[in-house]
């Protein structure tokens, strides 16, 4: 295990070390002090443990690597990630997993507003609650919420799936509750097992997705545009 300490190294030093490291390396990052843009653009299978909370865009555009934050994360956690796994033990701020194409994000605490905005294939699991406008314009992937969802959930959603165990304050435009089929129960099980989450009751989840009524412009829908 390699220790990278913010008390001794700059952000550039730490990111460069991570980006240029050998495959299967294991790093522990100490004293992050809420630093922004930490562990971004990693392009290989390595393991990174961050001891403490981080700022904006931690693990941004991640590919292949497993990143665990033992603390909380600021806005844009794992934005546009392509693959790999991100695990935050605390809470996360706005836009977690924004436009993520693949991989998995597990948040043990709560996620703020716009969680999973424009997501394009990533799986996001939030053990707590999510804020308003989560899964806004979500295109593909899955947002799994163990707690409650704020207002306008799934507004203008495309082909992503949302699973909610708690209460939904309100649904956004073109987002509707859909039948939880066997296939979707199975999908949910895979998503959670991939993230090593086993303490759940599948019967408590409801599924939400697109009514697909806004896919092509129709003047009769003008009031909801």
């Amino acid at each position, binding site marked *: 295990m390699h220790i990278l300490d913010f008390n001794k190294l700059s952000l550039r030093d730490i*990111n460069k070390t991570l980006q240029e490291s050998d495959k299967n390396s294991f790093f522990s990052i100490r004293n992050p002090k809420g630093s*922004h843009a930490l562990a971004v653009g990693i392009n290989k299978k390595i393991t990174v443990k961050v001891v403490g909370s981080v700022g904006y865009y931690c693990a941004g555009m991640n*590919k292949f690597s497993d990143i665990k934050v033992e603390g909380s994360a600021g806005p*844009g956690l794992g934005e*546009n990630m392509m693959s790999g796994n991100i695990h935050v033990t605390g809470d996360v701020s706005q*836009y977690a997993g*924004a436009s993520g194409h693949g991989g998995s994000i597990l948040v043990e605490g709560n996620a703020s507003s716009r969680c999973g905005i424009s997501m394009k294939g990533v799986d996001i699991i939030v053990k707590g609650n999510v804020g308003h406008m989560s899964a806004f314009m979500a*295109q593909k992937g899955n947002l799994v919420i163990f707690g409650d969802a704020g207002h306008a959930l799934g507004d203008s959603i495309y082909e992503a799936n949302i699973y909610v165990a708690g209460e939904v304050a309100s649904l956004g435009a073109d987002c509707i509750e859909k039948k939880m089929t066997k296939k979707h129960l199975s999908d949910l099980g895979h998503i959670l097992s991939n993230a090593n989450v086993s303490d759940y009751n599948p019967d408590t989840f409801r599924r939400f997705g697109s009514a697909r009524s806004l*896919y092509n*412009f129709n003047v009769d829908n003008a009031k909801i545009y």
Partner: protein
Amino acid sequence: MKKKSITEPRTSHTFDAYTNSEIRRAAETGIYDIRGGGSKRNLPNFDDLLFLGASISRYPLEGYREACNTKVILGDRFSSNPLNLEIPITIAGMSFGALSAQAKEALGRGASLVGTSTTTGDGGMTKEERGHSKQLVYQLLPSRYGMNPDDLRKADAIEIVVGQGAKPGGGGMLLGQKINDRVAEMRTLPKGIDQRSPCRHPDWTGPDDMEIKILELREITGWKVPIFVKVAGSRPYYDVALAAKSGADVVVVDGMQGGTAATQEVFIENVGIPTLACVRPAVRALQELGLHRKVQLIVSGGIRNGADVAKALALGADAVSIGSAALIALGDNDPRYQKDYEKLGTTAGSFDDWHEGLDPAGITTQDKKLAKRLDPKLGGRRLANYLNVMTMEAQTIARACGKNDLRNLEPEDLCALTVESAAMAGVPLAGTNWIPGT
């Protein structure tokens, strides 16, 4: 029978023929007009400025003999590998999806022949355009369609698109007709649906956030490539100042004549300000920050010829960018397709339904048969010719003003034909020392 007095039929300026037809169209269809291109209004523009050639008080350089530099470096503020361009004219961002693969390839070929850059668009980077563009700027757009870190690292520069001159405050629009399998796959959306890109980035909101976003992009790319920030021409003084303060290497300001693939007509014609009015406030913002020439300024929106290039540079820009003009060079709205345009209910020179995917010139289409009409090699050659002509025209003017570098042109070399253009450009009305507003 009493004879009626005879007067000429009088049409209304308020309800002119176009306005009336638009009212009838709205009543019939129930949808606003969507079209491509930029503003078609008669706006104050660079034609309203004239150069004051040298005579006794200034002396000129010899045409075709004395050198006049056209090279420009973009993005050397923070990046280790700035763009080194042979000419100060770049190709603006236009997406694969809005344009055919052939058109994107032609743009890359043409730009590369003359040593300038081309730019991706909404939907990501295609192999064709990376392969044929020696210097490629990769756009980071609010939709993040096709955005991935591998392409980001292949780019020679990154352009964060905050706004576009044709639609400040608005998002992109690519209607279902043009969403074929390849376009749909690149954008991770179902085939055939309307793709209305967001107007805001999904993971930041204001200038303080943008500064951190720029930091992230630099950390991902190792501080190697320049970061551009593109803003629409609406409040250029403030937007350019904030972009520079946020850490941009280059700021692009796109006036309302700048084109779009598809947007509401009411948006194109009523939101934003003319390119002419953008330049001086943008330059002033950089000057007041001590960053003029350190943060390069690119101006776009309705640039057509070498005179426009020279005027933009004289007002303080470092380079210009062209989109619509480049498409015309490739063959857009060419009279040889007049019969085809007539079948679409329009004419060569007026065609702007780029969103419908039926472009007879094979440029703004995903129809395979139509796209084949455009030969990318020939198109690239035509674009290169056009870029060379623009550059030579600008050099001709610069030499006549006694300048051995296009960027040595200055506002003092200009005067204005109208009070409005004098005020916007901050140069004297012709024959006077009067600059309105100063």
